[in-house]
């Protein structure tokens, strides 16, 4: 991990439909870091995550990406900061068509050769799936991997994951997170995961930010936050944290 902040959030507040969702949130994310954002339901985790690639904008405060205002070049930002949503979107058509979706506006991706697409599928451990396979016929876990492969074709520096395992069983959840962890190392990705599953995140995240009612109530390693009993205060866990820790 290098000490170079890739993101800087400075007193970021966010309001939607008259409700304050984020309240003066400040923190930094280092390049190459694996960060987990945890919080109970409605804590503002997903809203916060959407700020990283400017799908949401702060009502107040400032966000910098690589030292510049996050909105400096939006298309470049979104290419560099990929996101995997809770419910992966799979478009009608083949696996190949899904992988090449960004080819509609990006010539480089449009010209990707089939063997490169197969490599992209192998990268997400889907090498056995044919490019001509109907994407909608894939299982939930495979659709999640396909969405991940599509995001990786943009060669991002940062990967955002919004509750990526919430619709998957524990075994599949772990295999997806193992994959993300492997990719974060091989591709030197900065990974930011929003999750309610603190047990799963303990295996991967180097640092954790705990949100409660739109405010940061904890920012540090699991060990530090366990010591300060942050997870209990945020209403995130029962006794199982201590067992696990």
């Amino acid at each position, binding site marked *: 991990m290098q000490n170079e902040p890739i993101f800087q959030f400075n007193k970021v507040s966010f309001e*939607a*439909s008259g409700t304050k969702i984020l309240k003066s949130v400040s923190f930094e994310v280092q390049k190459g870091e694996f960060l987990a954002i945890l919080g109970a339901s409605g804590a503002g985790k997903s809203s916060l995550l959407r700020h990283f*690639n*400017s*799908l*949401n*904008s702060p009502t107040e405060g400032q966000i910098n990406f690589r030292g510049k205002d996050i*909105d400096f070049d*939006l*298309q*470049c930002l*979104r*290419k560099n900061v*990929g*996101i995997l*949503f809770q*419910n992966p*979107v799979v*478009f009608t058509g083949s696996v190949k068509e899904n992988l090449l*979706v*960004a080819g*509609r*506006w*990006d010539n480089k991706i449009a010209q990707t050769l089939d063997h490169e697409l197969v490599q992209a599928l192998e990268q997400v451990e889907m090498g056995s799936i044919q490019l001509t396979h109907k994407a909608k016929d894939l299982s939930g876990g495979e659709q999640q991997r396909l*969405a991940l492969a*599509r*995001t990786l074709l*943009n060669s991002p520096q940062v990967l955002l994951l919004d509750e990526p395992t919430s619709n998957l069983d524990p075994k599949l959840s772990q295999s997806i997170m193992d994959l993300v962890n492997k990719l974060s190392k091989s591709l030197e990705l900065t990974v930011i995961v929003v999750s309610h599953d603190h047990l799963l995140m303990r295996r991967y995240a180097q640092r954790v930010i705990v949100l409660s009612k739109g405010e940061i109530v904890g920012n540090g390693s699991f060990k530090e936050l366990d010591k300060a009993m942050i997870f209990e205060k945020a209403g995130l866990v029962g006794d199982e944290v201590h067992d696990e820790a």
Partner: protein
Amino acid sequence: MRPDFYVLTWNDLVVSLFFIAFSFFLIKKWKLGLEQTLLIGTLRSFVQLTLMGYVLTWFFDQQHWAFMLSLLFIMILIASYEGTRRQKNDIPHFFPAMFVALLASAILILGTILLFILDVKPWYSPYAAIPIGGMIIGNGLNSASLTANRFVGEMRHRENEIETLLALGATPKIAVYDAMNTSIHAALIPNINAMMTVGLVQLPGVMTGQILAGIDPIIAVRYQIMIMYMWFTTATMANIILLAIVYRQFFTKKMQLKRELLREQA
């Protein structure tokens, strides 16, 4: 032998009340509960159309370009208001968007017909400009209203798809392309079907009217063909212009989807 003209007198019209009497009888017999509505509808259609006849007679006596342009302008304003009222969803700036779409279609299509196809002299002759302008605006209104409603439905249905595309680096225009395409396609199908079946299944109103008024069917057919082409072009143009303006209302300047606009409104 072809009659020159079938003149419909007020007495003839009274006889046509037989249709209403018959419908009334059927409604009563089947206990459909529509008796009052039918009577009000009968009276309103009589009064409204009779008044319109007198108004049109006065309009047709006006021979001035400023009058004609003002009238078309007012027709477009009313159609834009009606189109806005028909929207099930609150789309920001919908009224001006509809106005621009209808105005542009009317200028291009009505202008082409009056100046280059019918070669009307003077071009602002109300006998041509009012009925053709009315058809263009009316057809544009119907098609564009349908498109806009469908578009919001498509946006709602494809919300996650659109955000995925934005997140991958697409511009809003690219992100909504499929939603726009599907909406315009759906709205144009009635026009395409009409072109496919015209003359086979039904005789269109304009042609029927002209034939009843004593016009040679060959000439009436030519008019009808022009009108079909005009309708299709109006619908296509109005839909594209409308959506080209409307889709922007769903995004911020930072290429973010305004998700609150897609929430179902009570």
